[in-house]
């Protein structure tokens, strides 16, 4: 009996550990979606302000607005959501290049603060993605090792995809201050 119980306990422990890790990955993913949402929320204002200055570049603004509604329409956590987020990102970065040609737009107070918010949001996205990658790495390592691999095959834990390393995140040098 005791033997059976302790055998049971030694099986449950690692399983719980896997579940905890899985939850962590999930909640960190939710963080990523939060900051994606933050970016999406900035777009209507951005389009409005830019419209007034960019008479000849309506196309990209329309494209941006469309990318946003596609993002808003995709169900949470779906591959479509991720795709829409990536599309939004690429349209936005093209827009920012075009904005460089409009000094009046760049000097606009509302535009400046939108650009600050946008830059801050892009940075938040990169921070949350980086954290997601770290946690996903822990999880993926766990399901490759024994006994995690066993549980993974029984309970269908799947390997998590990573974000591609951005902005020197792959180098990760030490910050040496106390």
């Amino acid at each position, binding site marked *: 009996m005791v033997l059976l119980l302790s055998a049971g306990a030694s099986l449950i422990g690692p399983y719980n550990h896997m579940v905890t890790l899985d939850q962590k990955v999930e909640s960190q993913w939710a963080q990523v979606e939060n900051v994606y949402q933050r970016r999406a929320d900035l777009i209507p204002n951005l389009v409005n302000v830019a419209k007034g200055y960019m008479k000849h570049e309506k196309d990209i603004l329309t494209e941006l607005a469309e990318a946003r509604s596609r993002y808003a329409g995709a169900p949470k956590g779906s591959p479509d959501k991720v795709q829409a987020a990536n599309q939004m990102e690429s349209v936005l970065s093209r827009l920012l290049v075009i904005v460089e040609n409009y000094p009046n737009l760049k000097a606009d107070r509302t535009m400046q603060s939108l650009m600050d918010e946008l830059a801050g949001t892009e940075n938040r996205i990169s921070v949350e993605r980086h954290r997601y990658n770290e946690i996903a790495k822990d999880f993926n390592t766990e399901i490759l090792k024994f006994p995690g691999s066993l549980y993974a095959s029984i309970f269908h834990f799947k390997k998590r995809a990573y974000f591609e390393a951005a902005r020197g995140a792959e180098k990760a*040098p030490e910050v040496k201050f106390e």
Partner: protein
Amino acid sequence: MARVNDFTGTLSPDTRSELEEKLAQFERKTSTQVVVAIVPTLEGLPVEDYSIRLAEKWKVGQAGKGNGVILLVAKAERKVRIEVGYGLEGVLPDSVAGRIIREKIAPSFKEGNYDKGISDGVGAIISAASGAGYSPDAGASRPRRKKTPDLVLLFIPAFILAIIGRSLIQSVLGKAGLRTGRTRSSALFAGGLATGVLAGSVMALLLGLDLLVGGFVGLVCGFLAPLSAHGGGFYMGGGGMSFGGGGFYSSGDSGGGFSGGGGDFGGGGASGDW
């Protein structure tokens, strides 16, 4: 770790201790931790990456509140960043952080006035973080009223030290049998000046002031010491009391073992250059 971490020797000791005191007081009042870091280089990292790593390492701000701010300045890359903790993103949004950099910090940095840029920047951060919002005129650096108190702090102990020194010389000369005569007065005069200069220099070192200033004030003290030398013993008694004052002042720039409270950062804030 202190609240003001200047790894480049850019800030004047005055500004550093003033900011140190201001930030400590702000934390006592609101529990919000604001930390300044001036580094020589970002070691090849983008300023945002460097800054978030510093934030994760130092854990500025209180746990659960996320009320920490880091003002990071990188000299070689000429980059500034204000890193804002989760809990302050409402009162110190990215747009305000960006304006503080563009309107308060960068203009002074361009003129090479780092003291003013950082003081004004910290002033604006404190104003925003305390919920008072941001206006371009808020937190402008007040006219510097620090010089006078510093000189007074330097003068009084130096003067007392000079008097003590002079009376010591007097008693030594007395034991040597020299109670009158020209040798005695010139020895006393030279000795008085020397103790004055010595006392002034020591006080200048303690207060973080220029040695030349200390020496000069000490010289004046050495001159003036004979005027009040009649009651030497009396002054010696009073001397002990004012040393306490010196120690109290100099504790201002050590920062008194500051440590981060476990605050969280999510990459909010703004970056800029000059």
